[in-house]
């Protein structure tokens, strides 16, 4: 049982970690000082949440693992994050698009997890929900600013949404672990969130004067450990120190 909760925590913590990593790449390179600071704040929140999940997972681990063993010392196929959060920072519209599409899901997920039968998960969700409410507000506002700003920003935002939208299909997909956690009242009911998720996404896109992408095909695989080509490069940097200098304290 504890092993399954451990596995379940990876689904949540890997998403926050990899998205936090992508945002951390932008620190010092933002379009203005104010956005640089705001995106770094979000990255910091996500890493803080990641630490909470992995510290909890570490207590459930049979092999006496630390949060850092869990974060840094797995093989690529053992990471459970969705493909969406791995997508690169092609430009600011992609950053905002990725953030918004994830925030909307993250907000709904945490709304469910605050009622988890596992008191530790519920407590982390409670704390994280405050932060993610702000993230969603921030990214929704930027979707509107870029969508309804200039012709150029509208076009860039539309391109980014078109590119990223097919990666949303994986968010409400339920893996066997997630199904089991749902049935035990520990995890969230992902398929039940799907309608609400798309309603919320579409509402903001409409307000931003953006078209809702017409697609019948969604990408998936991240949750099963089949990642995009980007993931290997993310891990190359993320794991560099731990791989190059194993078993040391930092």
């Amino acid at each position, binding site marked *: 049982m504890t092993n399954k909760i451990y596995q379940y925590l990876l689904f949540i913590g890997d998403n926050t970690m990899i998205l936090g*990593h992508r945002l*951390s*790449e932008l*620190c*010092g*390179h*933002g*379009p*203005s*000082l*104010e*956005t*640089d*600071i705001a995106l*770094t*704040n979000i*990255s*910091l929140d996500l*890493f*803080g949440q*990641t*630490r909470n999940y*992995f510290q909890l997972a570490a207590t459930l681990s049979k092999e006496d693992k630390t*949060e*850092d063993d869990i*974060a*840094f010392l797995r093989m690529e196929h053992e990471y459970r994050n969705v493909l969406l959060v791995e997508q690169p920072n092609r*430009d*600011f519209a992609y950053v905002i698009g990725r953030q918004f599409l994830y925030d909307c899901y993250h907000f709904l997920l945490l709304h469910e997890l605050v009622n988890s039968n596992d008191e530790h998960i519920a407590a982390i969700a409670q704390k994280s929900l405050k932060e993610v409410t702000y993230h969603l507000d921030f990214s929704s506002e930027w979707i*509107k*600013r*870029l969508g*309804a*700003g*200039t012709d*150029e*920003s509208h076009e*860039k935002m539309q391109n980014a949404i078109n590119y990223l939208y097919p990666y949303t299909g994986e968010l409400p997909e339920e893996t066997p672990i997630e199904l089991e956690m749902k049935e035990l009242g520990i995890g969230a009911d992902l398929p039940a969130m799907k309608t609400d998720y798309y309603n919320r996404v579409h509402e903001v896109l409409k307000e931003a004067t953006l078209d809702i992408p017409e697609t019948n095909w969604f990408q998936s695989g991240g949750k099963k450990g089949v990642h995009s080509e980007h993931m290997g490069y993310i891990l190359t*940097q*993320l794991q*560099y*120190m*731990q791989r190059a*200098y194993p078993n*040391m*304290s*930092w």
Partner: protein
Amino acid sequence: MKDSIEKPEAEFQRKIDEGHHIEPKDWMPEKYRKTHIRQISQHAHSEIVGMLPEGNWITRAPTLRRKVALLAKVQDEAGHGLYLYSAAETLGITRDELVDQLHAGKAKYSSIFNYPTLTWADIGAIGWLVDGAAIINQVMLTRTSYGPYARAMVRICKEESFHQRQGYEIMLTLCRGTEVQKQMAQDALNRWWWPSLMMFGPTDAESTHTELSMKWKIKRKSNDELRQQFVDNTVPQADILGITIPDKDLKWNEKRGHYDFGEIDWEEFWNVVKGNGRCNKERLDTRRAAHENGAWVREAAARYAEKQSNKVLSEAN
């Protein structure tokens, strides 16, 4: 006629001599204004460019705890840049103008950021040495005569001293670690020691700004005094770490009550100031690229804000 010119100047100097702040709306000599714009903006640029060498290690930080601390630190620097640009704006120049000066290569920033960060230990060494040197300068600046600058410095100093302790703690962890880690720490000290001493600027004999800066209480101590204070503070800290400062002439001088230290390579200093450091071009190119790539975002935000305010106005009518 002569009186009306002399009077504000005398009043200005009296305020400074009595230890009062000069505030944005007070009369000030044009040279005082220009000197402050130059100094505060150089300081702001240093914070912003300074985000890059440390930012270089965010994605590779060795643990989650270190990653979060480094991210927060680099973010603090962006915050310091913001207060300092705001302080400079009180002197009648815009942030855009100042940023353009930086990107055009007309404004300077601290040369230390033109050195590369090659290992994780560099993050420790920068916190310990570079922030340590910066604090010595900045503590002095909390008592500088220009009010907005002095107040910005009070806040910045609190955060900087936290950064310095964080850097030293990284070094301490490395020095108590494996042989490989200790070597990494020593190598970082070897590379960052002399550039850190150069941060205080040319010797008093060579410095062009010192005399007037002292009279106007822009500076309260000379470059050489500050540098000596840094050396005196830092040598015992290196001893605790058990690593060696790369200066064969470094020794305690009982008579002076200070450490004597070797000659700084001023040729290297001036070369880096003139743009020949390892990373001068790269740092500026990176800043320019961030600014240029962000232009459409800033335009969109401005256009959207304008549309929103027009909407509010038309609804009100």
